[in-house]
Structure formats: structure tokens, C-alpha cells
């Protein structure tokens, strides 16, 4: 009985119907925050003394970097929940999170290299941070490739969940070893973070952008999950009703 709520949470239909109401709010919040932060950061924050205007890419680069990491943990944790409690919804979240995470790491790598060109004079530098992000993107790729390789959906879900979990054990190890590798080989000639004596007037828009990107990420994750739900449940009555436009879904949702 205690687990009732958990199983409710695990019901794709419940999730689909609940999130219906959230979507507009999330959308408004995300766009609002991103717009405010973007205009503030790009238009009004002061120019950096050394890097001139090129530093402004930071307002995309840094928030996306933070999220792409949390996304991995969201993916791995939902995989674990799915494996342990044998629920369907977490697997769908996991499957939805993987490509988003890959996209985010690619954005970090791309904005990073675009930034690197004016600041370091090269597109790519074997810095510890960058390297570990590259490896993170490989981990995502592995999960996605494994998920797609299986014909059977259950097997695909469980197998990629196991892989995501094994990856979680490894992420801290990877970070430590890459850090260590870098310091061993090279006295830091350049540093990405660390000199965070950043001016507050640059920092506030950054916070806004970070929160904005988190909300945006939540929105995208929910949207992907909803698509996945519809794809998987396409046979069930409630989805058929939904697609055929029967309007009584809300009433039924309340009953069950």
C-alpha cells in the first residue's frame, strides 16, 4: 500500500496527463528566463578586459556544461529505478535523456571550441576539463547505440540501464584520473575556471541563464518522454482516444 504513490508515479498515463498542465508554465518560464538572461548577458553586461566580447559565449557554454553533467545522473538514476522497481516510465525518461545529454555535450564542445579559437588560438586543447567532457559524450553515445541496437524494447531498456549504471561508477574515476593526468603532464599554462574573480555584473545574467537552461532542459526532457510514451503505448485505449480526439481523457484520468 505504501508503494501506491510510487506506482502511480510509474504510470505513463498519469505522467502524460499531469504534465499536460505543466507544459505551458515551463515554456513560459524557460523562454522568459532565457530571454532576460540572454539580453542582459549579451547586451548589457560589461565587456571583458582581456577577451573583449568573445567571452559572452560563456552565457551558453557554462550553463549547458553544468546541465549535460546532471543529465547523465538523471539518466542513470532513472535507469536504476526502472531496473529495481520494474517500472516502465523511468526507462522512458532514461531513453529520452540520452540523446538530449549527447546534444548538450556536443553544444559544450562546440561552443568551447568556438571560444577557444579567439582566446587560445586553437580549436582544441587537451585540457582536463575538455577531455573529460569528450569522454562523457562517448558514454552517452554508448548508451544510445546500445539502446538502438536491440530489437526488443525491454531488453534495450534494461541493457542500456546497466550500462548507464556502470558508467556512473566510472564518471568520478574518469574525472579524477583525467585531472591527475593533466596536472602530471603539464603545468597549467591556461585555466578554464579558477580565476573566478568574475565581476558580479557578469555573474547575475549567468545565474539567470543557468536557471533558464535548467527549466528549458526539464521542458525538453518532458516533451521527449511524452513522445516516447505515445510511441510505446500507441495500442492502449487512452492513447487511441487521445489521438482520435475524444475529450473525456481528463475524466478518466481522475478515476483511475
Amino acid at each position, binding site marked *: 500500500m505504501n508503494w501506491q504513490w510510487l506506482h502511480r508515479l510509474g*504510470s*505513463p*498515463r498519469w505522467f502524460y496527463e499531469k504534465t499536460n498542465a505543466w507544459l505551458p508554465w515551463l515554456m513560459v518560464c524557460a523562454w522568459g528566463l532565457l530571454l532576460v538572461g540572454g539580453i542582459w548577458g549579451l547586451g548589457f553586461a560589461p565587456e571583458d578586459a582581456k577577451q573583449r566580447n568573445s567571452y559572452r559565449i560563456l552565457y551558453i557554454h557554462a550553463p549547458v556544461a553544468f546541465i549535460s553533467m546532471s543529465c547523465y545522473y538523471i539518466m542513470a538514476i532513472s535507469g536504476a529505478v526502472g531496473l529495481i522497481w520494474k517500472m*516502465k516510465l523511468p526507462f522512458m525518461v532514461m531513453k529520452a535523456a540520452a540523446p538530449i545529454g549527447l546534444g548538450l555535450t556536443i553544444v559544450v564542445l562546440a561552443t568551447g571550441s568556438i571560444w577557444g579559437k579567439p582566446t587560445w588560438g586553437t580549436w582544441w586543447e587537451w585540457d582536463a576539463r575538455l577531455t573529460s567532457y569528450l569522454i562523457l559524450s562517448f558514454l552517452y553515445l554508448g548508451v544510445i547505440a546500445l539502446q538502438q541496437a536491440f530489437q*526488443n524494447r*525491454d531488453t534495450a531498456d534494461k541493457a542500456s540501464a546497466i550500462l548507464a549504471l556502470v558508467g556512473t561508477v566510472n564518471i568520478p574515476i574518469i574525472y579524477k584520473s583525467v585531472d591527475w593526468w593533466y596536472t602530471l603532464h603539464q603545468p597549467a599554462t591556461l585555466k578554464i575556471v579558477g580565476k573566478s574573480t568574475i565581476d558580479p555584473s557578469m555573474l547575475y545574467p549567468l545565474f539567470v541563464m543557468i536557471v533558464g537552461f535548467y527549466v528549458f532542459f526539464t521542458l525538453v526532457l518532458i516533451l521527449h518522454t511524452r513522445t516516447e510514451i505515445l510511441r510505446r*503505448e500507441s*495500442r*492502449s*485505449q*487512452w492513447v487511441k482516444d487521445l489521438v482520435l480526439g475524444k475529450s473525456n481523457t481528463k475524466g478518466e484520468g481522475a478515476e*483511475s
Partner: protein
Amino acid sequence: MTAAPALLELRNLACERDERYLFAQLNANFYAGQVVQILGPNGSGKTTLLRILAGVSKDFYGDIFWQSQPLKDTAWEYANDLLYLGHLPGIKKSLTPFENLRWYAAVQGGVADADLIKALAQVQLAGYENTPCYRLSAGQLRRVALARLAFSRAKVWVLDEPFTALDKSGVAELEAKLIAHAAAGGLVLVTSHQDINVPNLQLLNLLDFPVDAQLLNSHEDAAYG
């Protein structure tokens, strides 16, 4: 029906592949001493059912009871009492028949080497004990797999098309073995498209368990409710 409790009970078993039910509301009791042939045309789900009964596949609805206990609770005891022989013979082609059997002997625990030699002789492979299996014909390969039956101590035999590739005398020998196993209080579940010549053969036709629209909804609800 016998008075003794059923060895294996299937209750409301249903199985879905490719968004299509193969069978549903499958209820059946299997008793010690029976040889049961599972029938059904191509693609009706016989192999799928046997893989479920062998514990290889867990992708089904419904319950299975082993000696009146849910299978989940008695998985270990059941595994000890089960011999499964699938479509694939499970024979390493680089090993000899004897080496293959020796590994299977270990799977089941403690069988003397002499018994393995005897088992091979029983399937007409005397003289082939030390020939690598890639040199054997299709039927001889299947005979190596079937030699496991001779030293098995399992109560339940689950055999998927064991008569494939066997010649006439091979078929007769296997039938004799099934009869003997049932007489000794064992249970045999077997699929085959050929007629099996065993007295008192029980038949289970998968076409008798068609899908019923109401039931579908109940599963959907169970899954999503």
C-alpha cells in the same frame, strides 16, 4: 485427472510478441508420468512457451506453479529438476562428444565418466567419442545433445523439436526414452510437427487459447493502472 497434485501448473498464462498475443488464458496442469506434446502450426508460439517454461524468457503474463508453489519462490529447486533442450543443440563444435557431455555432467553435478560413454553408446555414437563435433552430420550432432537424457536426473524434460534431423531408428529410440522417463514418474513436454508414437500421449494445442478482447484490456490496465 490424477489425484496427486500437479507437478507444473500454468495459470492464465499469456504471451505477447510484436504487439500481438500468441496465446492467452492458457491454463494447464501437468502431472508426473505424462508425456505432453505441444501442438500448433508454424508461428503459433510453441518455442516461446517452452522458453518461458524453461525460465530462459521472462516476458509473459500469468503465473506458473512448481509443485504447488509459485515458480518465483522455487526457482532453484525447479532449476535442479529441469532439463531443457532448445532449438539450438548447445554443443561446442570444437569439442568432442565426450568433452561436451562432461561439461553437461558438471552442470547437473557428479556423473561418472563411464556413464557418459554409455550415454553416447545409447545414441549410436560409440566410436565417435573423440571425434571433434564439427565432423559430425546434422543428425549426429543432435544425438550428442540427446545423450544428455541418458544420465539426467531431472524430473521435467522440456524438449523443442528434438526429432529434427533424426533418422527413423533415432526417432524410435528417443520415443522409447520418453516412455521410460514418464514411467519412472517424470514429466516430458515436447514439441514436434511429426506424430509421436507414445502410449497415453497428452496433447496441448495452442490454438485452443485464442485471444479475447476483454482480456487484452485487463492486461493493459494492469500494466498502466
